[in-house]
């Protein structure tokens, strides 16, 4: 992505900067408009820090009316807009553009309504993921999707990215836990989809907007499902001599009808890095380490722990520990949760990938990855959401060595191509953003991508919202809308008729 092409700068917009700042300041008074270069620097990148760009102007609205007015103004003036939540995207979804207003939603930070009888909470998009859980924890509830950035990431960003987490096999992604949203179109129309009821009416635009990476609208309110916390949780920590054994164990657990709350695997380099860092007591003589967490009523958890133990032993587990108390369970997780910083400790930089593969392909993918690792002469450590096949290879590199970032990205691209080749996808939970944008044709045909872009045209005909993200090639909506059929020239299909 080093040679990333972004949409050409709109010189006419750049030339009007002073006027635009004044106009936006009239819409969002006080300190809601930031145009000073120094102050704007903090917004120059998101969680994908390798890429930076100074925003054109930063706007921090406080009300839906302001959001609508800003968008309407930008739409009328042909000004691009990049929405941003907490800026934790790992794919550059909130990477600013030098000619785009950066619309920062962080002031939308209120919990509006907690409705226990209907098990939902209505929150503003700037509320953090964990903030929702904190707001309802007193009554024993929580919000299930738990991306690893949950302390910082906002629910609006979660909706934009359809964020996952370690518990999604059992509890679903963001899309499965959002009941309704209010959003504003680029034209400044405020719309509501769904609500406290279970299904939104008409076309499932809620499903389309969730995970649309800020390209279709700006979310201003979210209604989420909250769940009663499971009565208890226990975990098994299982080591295997080979990744094949670990993979087979995962398949056998699922074949036995068990859907664990969490099921995480680490490979040898990740195990060693984590153990060196947090001393979680991980075995160092195994090729794969599996954490299986079972949650629910105590009777169920105790019963399933035994079943999983049996399955693990049948799959040549070389070490096996079962948590007997909460402290022990958390210690099993400590190494996994610290895996990223642990890898950060042993390498100046690391690059986190996010493909998903059919689980059974894990040994093949790991073997091929080792070959690639040798080829590029770059180390790689793997953490794997084993339940759902979401693989996070961490490529270790040093950005100070000239050319190494480019080499790392090439390696990363090869890994993602491999994921697609074995039947998987480019991104499981981090989003396409700018990072995987140019790899989209690996997975989609031109017609696939064009149909997706036509959906964008329905929402944003001038393609002003977050351009340069997700789609490798921008087509004008008029061109996408053209139909290449000619009356009479299309042969009548030779179909059996009656």
């Amino acid at each position: 992505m080093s040679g990333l092409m972004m949409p050409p700068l709109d010189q006419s917009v750049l030339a009007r900067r002073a006027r635009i700042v004044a106009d936006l300041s009239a819409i969002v008074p006080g300190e809601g408009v930031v145009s000073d270069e120094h102050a704007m620097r903090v917004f120059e990148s998101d969680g994908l820090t390798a890429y930076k760009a100074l925003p054109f102007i930063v706007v921090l609205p406080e009300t839906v009316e302001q959001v609508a007015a800003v968008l309407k103004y930008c739409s009328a003036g042909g000004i691009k807009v990049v929405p941003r939540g907490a800026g934790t995207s790992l794919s550059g979804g909130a990477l600013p553009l030098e000619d785009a207003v950066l619309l920062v939603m962080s002031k939308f930070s209120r919990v509006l309504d907690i409705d226990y009888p209907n098990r939902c909470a209505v929150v503003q998009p700037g509320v953090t993921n964990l903030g929702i859980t904190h707001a309802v924890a007193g009554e024993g509830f929580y919000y299930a999707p738990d991306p690893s950035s949950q302390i910082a990431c906002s629910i609006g960003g979660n909706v934009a990215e359809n964020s996952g987490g370690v518990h999604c096999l059992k509890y679903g992604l963001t899309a499965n836990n959002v009941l309704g949203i209010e959003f504003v179109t680029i034209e400044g129309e405020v719309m509501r989809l769904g609500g406290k009821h279970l299904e939104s009416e008409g076309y499932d635009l809620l499903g389309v907007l969730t995970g649309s990476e800020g390209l279709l609208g700006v979310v201003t309110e979210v209604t989420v499902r909250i769940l009663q916390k499971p009565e208890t949780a226990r975990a098994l920590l299982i080591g295997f001599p080979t990744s094949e054994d670990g993979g087979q164990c995962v398949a056998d657990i699922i074949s036995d009808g068990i859907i664990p709350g969490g099921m995480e695997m680490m490979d040898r380099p990740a195990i060693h890095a984590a153990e060196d860092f947090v001393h979680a007591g991980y075995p160092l003589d195994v090729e794969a380490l599996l954490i299986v967490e079972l949650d629910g009523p105590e009777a169920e958890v105790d019963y399933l722990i035994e079943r999983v133990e049996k399955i693990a032993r049948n799959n040549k587990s070389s070490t096996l520990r079962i948590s007997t108390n909460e402290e022990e369970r958390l210690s099993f997780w400590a190494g996994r949760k610290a895996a990223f910083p642990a890898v950060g400790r042993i390498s100046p930089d690391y690059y986190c990938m996010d493909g998903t593969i059919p689980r059974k392909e894990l040994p093949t993918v790991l073997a091929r990855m080792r070959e690639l690792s040798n080829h590029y002469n770059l180390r790689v450590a793997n953490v794997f959401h084993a339940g759902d096949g979401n693989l996070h290879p961490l490529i270790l590199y040093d950005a100070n060595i000239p050319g190494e970032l480019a080499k790392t990205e090439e390696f990363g691209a090869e890994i993602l191509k491999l994921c697609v080749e074995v039947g998987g996808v480019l991104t499981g939970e981090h989003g396409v953003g700018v990072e995987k944008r140019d790899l989209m044709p690996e997975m989609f045909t031109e017609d696939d991508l064009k149909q997706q872009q036509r959906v964008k045209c329905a929402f944003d005909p001038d393609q002003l919202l977050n351009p340069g993200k997700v789609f490798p090639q921008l087509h004008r909506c008029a061109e996408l809308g053209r139909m290449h059929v000619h009356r009479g020239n299309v042969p009548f299909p030779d179909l059996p008729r009656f």
Partner: protein
Amino acid sequence: MTQKQQSTQADLHPQTNDDVLAAVKWAAGEEVPLEIIGQGSKRALGRPMQTAHTLDMSALTGVTLFEPEELVLSAKAGTPLEEIVKLLDQHNQELQFEPMDIGPLLGNKPKLGTLGGLVSTNLSGPRRLKAGSVRDHILGVTAVSGRGEVFKSGGRVVKNVTGYDLSKGLTGAYGTLAVLTDIIVKVLPRAETEQTLVIVGLTDADAAQAMATAMGSNAEVSGAAHLPAELNQGQAHTYLRLEGFTPSVASRIENLSSLLKSMGAQERLDEEASRKCWINVRDCLPFAAQRDAPVWRVSCTPSEGHAIVHAVKNQTDVSAYYDWQGGLVWMQMNDGNPNAPILRNTIQQHGGGHATLIRADVATRQSTDVFQPQPAPLAALSKRYRENFDPKGVLNPGRMN
């Protein structure tokens, strides 16, 4: 009433995906509208259409991929749902959203319908409350848009955020955007056993409270329904289903039972009785007999369901029962009139939601908004959304509006 025999339309019978593509290309080029059908079991859903041709998908059948340990199944859109259900059953798996069998309610045979029809109508059953609806289980689709272009979305893995989720975008679209040819679904283990706790004799309002308490507990209730006395042989029943591993269900039902002890007398349904009870709820069997009365499917805030029913009852003669903790109200209009304005205004006054006219004769469906009318800006967006898939309006035109 599969209607195939009765049809006077000219049918197109594609045998392959390429045939489907050719048919839609032709239709788009000639601007000839097509009615897309599988087994025709859901033809009486939605607005009546005027189409010269049907695109009969029933020859595009077959499960093309099934990997139980990967929790994934892929099938051609015309595959009979019953075939998929049976296959999954052999592997102790299921479609966890509990597809509704709408046949009996519409006066058709039971157990008809295709996977494509199921996805196009998004009709989930009682477990939707816990497990999500059809749209939450569709991993990927391949389809032919009304433009006459093949496109795919999603894939075969559960965790995937690559591009817009058009699989969801096509689910519940009643075939008005694209013709589905291949569908990949997430399949899940079937519960080892189930039991249902019944609370006897509650008013609708008390039942709403009991269901909310149960859903808010950690008993992991997978079905919460209430049948008032008039629809249940003179005795109101509130049903709370617990599914899972045997020791787990045994423990949870005790906990739930003591939690709700003060609410009313209790009974328990064992596995077999429980299954039967939930088929009754799922397939709207309480309203299957009276064919000429319109039936609505109301999606609302769960705690408001009973208040909506009460308010509508004050204005017209209706029977109603509740699924999804009260968030799904099945309502039969006993005077034969759909009374859409009364119902929709009442929903609006009670926290919002929407009503879909599921059973009504052709004339009624012609003159009534079958689907909830949307506010003008959203309706305009929906129209633009549809036109970007099907600019010439050749796929099931008018079915949804």
